[in-house]
């Protein structure tokens, strides 16, 4: 096809070639082309087949309002090729076809529409019930859009930005640009978004006069230049708004150009005030075969020529309902398009100048006429026009039918902002009646069509938006308002939706193949509101997001029901307003996790890492996930564990002890210097939320640890529970500041003694005590003698930056003893053998301190402290109906049950918290929470595992702990 390369309105660069691959051939386009316009330039007219009926589909809107041009591009299905910029080497395929889009073997489905009335998949093929699964597969095989390979990986760069603005203007047409310029006059930060790759809106491609000196497109470029030269206006082109939320949070996505570093990026804009100047789209005209290739909207035909230099056809018929159609007809005629006839559904109200222009060009004009049927199988060949009432008909041969019933405003962003829409009888638009605070509208969206009025409304909206930001714009706004009032107001619109047809092949929704007849069927079945009809017939639920049927459906329902005084009710709009890639929403998607200071050393040592809460931790140190060697090395020798993830806090100040008394169940006044106190925190229900140790550093100065999972909430927790007391204490979270190494096993003391600058003898540093000393005279450590894994253990807390050095020093010192790392899983088994609990494993939301057998921690005689949870603990103390933590051994010593398995008899009686094979004991042991009446020693438990096929596992309750019941090994 020859391009119109000399037009001043072009947005392509004919001197720069681009190519794509389609059907094994190379097709040439030019810079600025979309995939669809490049294909169109190469003679492609059928781009896709429809969802249900496999009807051929072609270019219709050029703005992606329907799935007509959805194709597979570079392995990505459902790409709207009409607004996807062409890049060199793109691989384009048609989709949902058996054969090709041009010759689809599934095309016979079009004849079977009588078998598929509205909602047929809800009503047919369901009896007998066994039929539906078979039928469903066939329906799904025959219907659908593109398919994505399960192993498909999205290529490209997807990122996000979070711009802030005082004023965000949605829509880069004349009104939007004028609004942005007006708001920017106050020095405010303004963001301007436009879905197209350039600014200009409906002025951009039109050569009609703006004033006596310039055409509309020239005015658009003038405004764009001014906008882009204003430093405090930030312009985002090719950026479609997808959501509008509370407090003027606007989300959008921008498509990257060839020079951009991203393919798409997600924008999250916070603005004080918003101006919506989104303009209008065309309201489709319904008639038989209204979606045949060769039928397109006015703007599509006009922009094909003026923006892309492609004459849309040779011989055209226009069936339109607004002046833009007349303007396009005259202009396209001048560009070389033969026009057989222009039919206008309006009996009157046309712009006399435009009528004169048609007359001058000898273009036949029919008032009150409308297209009622398009003929031709894969491409329109002929059209039947009729009077609005169907009393007379005429036929015209053509290869292009430009059809449009009227205009409809793009109100999606307003609806999302919770504006209420009401049908306006004058404009025929759904217009907002109650705009949310700090939201303004401007431009064609309001029904204005006069160029100067569009701009005046934009200026007024921009000034009002500036006023929202605290600027006094009252005088300027009043002037702008007067100027607007002096210009022509909103123009009268049309209501007609459909030609006088039965509607069997009149499509209201192209995406879902929903016909006029389907809508009538739904209404006759009792669906009386558009929202329900939309769901029952699927109209408006496809990729076009209601762009094609959004306005027509409520008009049609209202007209068909013919209720007195009833106004059309619009259907609900939800984000995303425009479909985009999930990859765009995902963005860079960095895995933001914490690593301990020993991460690299453990990785080097073969650590197998797992994400645990916010941390990545070494769970295993071999491929043997039973951790046999790690466990036995701790029991018989000495092991090293990175416990740096423990929560660590300093609490200091005159009232620090009071705060500790409030949140810990024990009497914290008894924390003696040089000693470690183990205690727990409960919530108001007495349920255990945390446990850890507390040491006293100095007067009114304590250091305490929490479980890993609670570290992030501890400061908040303590502050919350002391919020009314006015106590003077300070909390510092040292979780990341200090690393922790746990050195455990019978040889732990020997290893540590080689490097510690202190006496580690039992008398000098006994079990459950705390010391501060240095390692190799350089690294200060806080050391605690604890026994979580049931062996002689030292917990060394040191500056995080010294941790790698400290670890290596201990490793070197331990070499002669065969020291080795052990991971979180080995620790889990070791502490299980000792029956030391881990909160979250041996507890859940309802588990209280007493259930776990930790009642000994609770100091009942500190009422002054008002200990959190104490009241609840008193109330549940004698409650026999609670779970109890028990230890059990499996009857089959080689077969531990899975964690979380349920304990049953005739009903569920509890669950397994943790169970493992104990290599130390050569038995399978576990901890479970069971009904109190099952908690007696010797009770036999039946355990039901997932997928056990009814075969239960047997266990028996035994005394705890399983290992070293006298606790001698921790004190050796």
């Amino acid at each position, binding site marked *: 096809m020859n391009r119109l390369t000399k037009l001043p309105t072009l947005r392509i660069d004919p001197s720069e070639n681009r190519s794509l691959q389609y059907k094994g051939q190379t097709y040439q386009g030019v810079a600025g082309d979309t995939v669809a316009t490049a294909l169109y330039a190469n003679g492609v007219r059928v781009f896709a087949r429809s969802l249900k009926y496999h009807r051929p589909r072609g270019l219709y809107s050029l703005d992606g309002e329907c799935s007509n041009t959805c194709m597979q591009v570079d392995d990505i299905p459902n790409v709207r090729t009409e607004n996807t910029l062409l890049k060199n080497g793109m691989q384009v395929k048609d989709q949902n076809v058996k054969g090709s889009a041009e010759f689809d073997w599934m095309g016979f489905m079009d004849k079977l529409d009588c078998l598929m009335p509205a909602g047929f998949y809800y009503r047919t093929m369901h009896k007998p019930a066994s039929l539906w699964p078979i039928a469903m597969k066939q329906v799904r095989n025959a219907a659908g859009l593109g398919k994505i390979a399960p192993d498909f990986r999205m290529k490209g760069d997807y*990122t*996000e*930005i*979070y*711009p*802030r603005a*005082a004023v965000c203007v949605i829509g880069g047409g004349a009104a939007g640009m004028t609004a942005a310029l007006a708001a920017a006059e106050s*020095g*405010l*930060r303004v963001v301007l978004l436009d879905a197209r790759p350039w600014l200009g809106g409906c002025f951009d491609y039109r050569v009609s006069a703006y004033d006596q000196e310039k055409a509309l497109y020239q005015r658009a470029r003038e405004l764009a230049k001014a906008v882009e030269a204003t430093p405090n206006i930030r312009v985002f082109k090719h950026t479609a708004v997808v959501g509008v939320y509370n407090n003027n949070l606007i989300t959008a996505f921008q498509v990257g150009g060839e020079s951009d*570093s*991203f393919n798409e990026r997600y924008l*999250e804009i*916070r603005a*004080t005030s918003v101006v919506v100047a989104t303009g209008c789209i065309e309201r489709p005209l319904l008639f038989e075969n209204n979606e045949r290739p060769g039928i397109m909207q006015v703007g599509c035909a006009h922009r094909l020529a003026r923006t892309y230099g492609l004459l849309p056809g040779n011989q055209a018929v226009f069936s339109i309902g607004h002046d833009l159609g007349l303007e396009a007809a005259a202009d396209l005629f001048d560009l070389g398009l033969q026009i057989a006839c222009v039919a206008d559904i309006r009996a009157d109200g046309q712009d006399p100048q435009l009528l004169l222009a048609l007359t001058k060009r000898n273009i036949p004009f029919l008032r009150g006429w409308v297209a009622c049927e398009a003929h031709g199988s894969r491409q329109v060949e002929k059209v039947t026009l009729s009077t609005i009432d169907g009393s007379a008909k005429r036929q015209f041969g053509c290869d292009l039918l430009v059809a449009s019933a009227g205009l409809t405003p793009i109100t999606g962003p307003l609806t999302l902002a919770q504006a209420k829409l009401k049908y306006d009888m004058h404009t025929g638009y759904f217009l907002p009646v109650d705009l949310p605070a700090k939201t303004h509208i401007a431009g064609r969206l309001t029904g204005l069509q006069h160029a100067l009025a569009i701009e005046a409304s934009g200026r007024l909206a921009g000034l009002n938006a500036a006023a*929202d*930001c*605290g*600027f006094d714009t009252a005088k300027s706004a009043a002037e702008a308002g007067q100027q607007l009032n002096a210009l022509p107001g909103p123009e009268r619109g049309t209501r007609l939706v459909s030609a006088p047809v039965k509607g069997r092949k009149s499509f209201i929704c192209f995406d879902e193949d929903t016909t006029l007849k389907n809508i009538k069927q739904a209404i006759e079945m009792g669906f009386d509101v558009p929202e329900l009809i939309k769901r029952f017939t699927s109209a408006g639920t496809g990729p076009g997001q209601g762009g094609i049927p959004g306005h027509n459906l409520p008009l049609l329902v209202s007209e068909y029901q013919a209720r007195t005084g009833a106004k059309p009710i619009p259907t609900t709009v939800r984000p995303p307003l425009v479909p985009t890639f999930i990859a765009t929403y995902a963005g*860079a998607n*960095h*895995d*933001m*996790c*914490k*690593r*301990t*200071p020993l*991460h690299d050393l453990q990785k080097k040592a073969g650590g197998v890492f797992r994400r645990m809460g*916010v*941390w990545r931790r070494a769970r295993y140190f071999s491929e043997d996930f039973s951790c046999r060697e790690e466990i036995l090395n701790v029991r018989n020798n000495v092991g090293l564990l990175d416990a740096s993830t423990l929560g660590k806090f*300093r609490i*200091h*100040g005159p009232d620090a002890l009071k705060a500790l008394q409030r949140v810990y169940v024990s009497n914290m006044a008894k924390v003696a210097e040089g000693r470690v106190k183990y205690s727990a925190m409960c919530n108001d229900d007495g349920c255990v939320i945390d446990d850890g140790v507390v040491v006293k550093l100095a007067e009114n100065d304590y250091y305490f640890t929490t479980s890993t999972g609670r570290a992030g909430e501890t400061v908040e927790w303590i502050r919350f529970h002391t919020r009314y007391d006015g106590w*003077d204490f*300070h*909390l*510092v*979270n*040292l*979780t*990341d*500041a*200090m690393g922790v190494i746990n050195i455990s096993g019978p040889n732990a003391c020997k290893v540590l003694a080689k490097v510690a600058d202190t006496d580690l003898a039992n008398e000098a540093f006994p079990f459950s005590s705390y010391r501060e000393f240095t390692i*190799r005279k*350089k*690294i200060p450590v806080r050391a605690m003698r604890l026994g979580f894994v049931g062996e002689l253990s030292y917990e060394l807390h040191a*500056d*995080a*930056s*010294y*941790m*790698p*050095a400290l670890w*290596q*020093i201990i490793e*070197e010192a331990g070499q002669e003893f065969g020291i080795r790392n052990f991971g979180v899983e080995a620790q889990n088994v070791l502490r299980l053998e000792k029956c030391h609990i881990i909160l979250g494993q041996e507890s859940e939301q309802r588990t209280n301190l007493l259930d776990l057998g930790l009642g000994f921690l609770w100091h009942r005689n500190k009422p002054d402290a008002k200990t959190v949870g104490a009241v609840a603990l008193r109330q549940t103390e004698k409650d026999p109906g609670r779970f109890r933590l028990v230890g059990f051994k499996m009857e089959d010593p080689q077969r531990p049950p899975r964690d979380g398995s349920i304990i049953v008899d005739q009903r569920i009686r509890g669950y397994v918290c943790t169970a493992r094979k104990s290599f130390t004991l050569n038995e399978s042991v576990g901890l479970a929470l069971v009904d109190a009446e099952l908690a007696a020693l010797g009770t036999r438990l039946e355990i039901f595992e997932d997928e056990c096929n009814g075969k239960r596992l047997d266990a028996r309750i035994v005394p705890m702990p399983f290992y070293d019941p006298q606790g001698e090994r921790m004190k050796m």
Partner: protein
Amino acid sequence: MKEIQRQSPVQFKADAQKIAMRDNWPVVLEYSNEGRGPFVVDLTHKAKWDLQDKNLATHKPLGLDIPTLPGACAFQKSVLINRLNRTQCAIWHLLADAPALPGEPGYTDVTESTVLLALFGPNALAIAEKLTALDLMDPQKQTPFLLQGPFSHLPCQVVTLERGHGFDGGLLLTCSRGYARSMVHAILDAGAEFGLRPAGEQRFSAWASGLSGKPGSAQAPSVMHLVTTRENL
């Protein structure tokens, strides 16, 4: 173990040209091919103090005033003081070694708690915009100012130290030390399109020393006065 050294959680994949040892910290003063900016500099070794008190106004750490309102900062005598809330401020020793922690109650050395990064140079604020919704370019606020909130989805304290033309400028940010590697990865990834490169401490010092004591660096009350007169710029 040859020599006991501290280790920063940030390890850039770049060749260190000059390294100085300070309090057992190997501090990279300069990397090869630092480029012309933007730069990211690891300042984790810089001493950071936490000061908490019911009556913060009674304190004068190192003889310096603490800004009176949360979000305000004072950058004087090489020390940046950030008012975090009613009872707490952060004291960062950016350009000189810190003296011993004051003996009076309320102070905690939190140097090890957080990673401290500087991001500055051309388009530095554009990089930040890819990672946070915090309004680091708020024209209503006079630099330096503090914002607390998510940066690359992590809770951070972010101080805009300088705001230049367009997206040029610089900021400091801290987050929990454990997140250091994730944070640096996210920043370098976001900055790749702008040519972001790691730089040594010297580069930071050269930039920041020009900002210390500049007008506005200790004028928190006037900053907040602006905040109350206009809703948002």
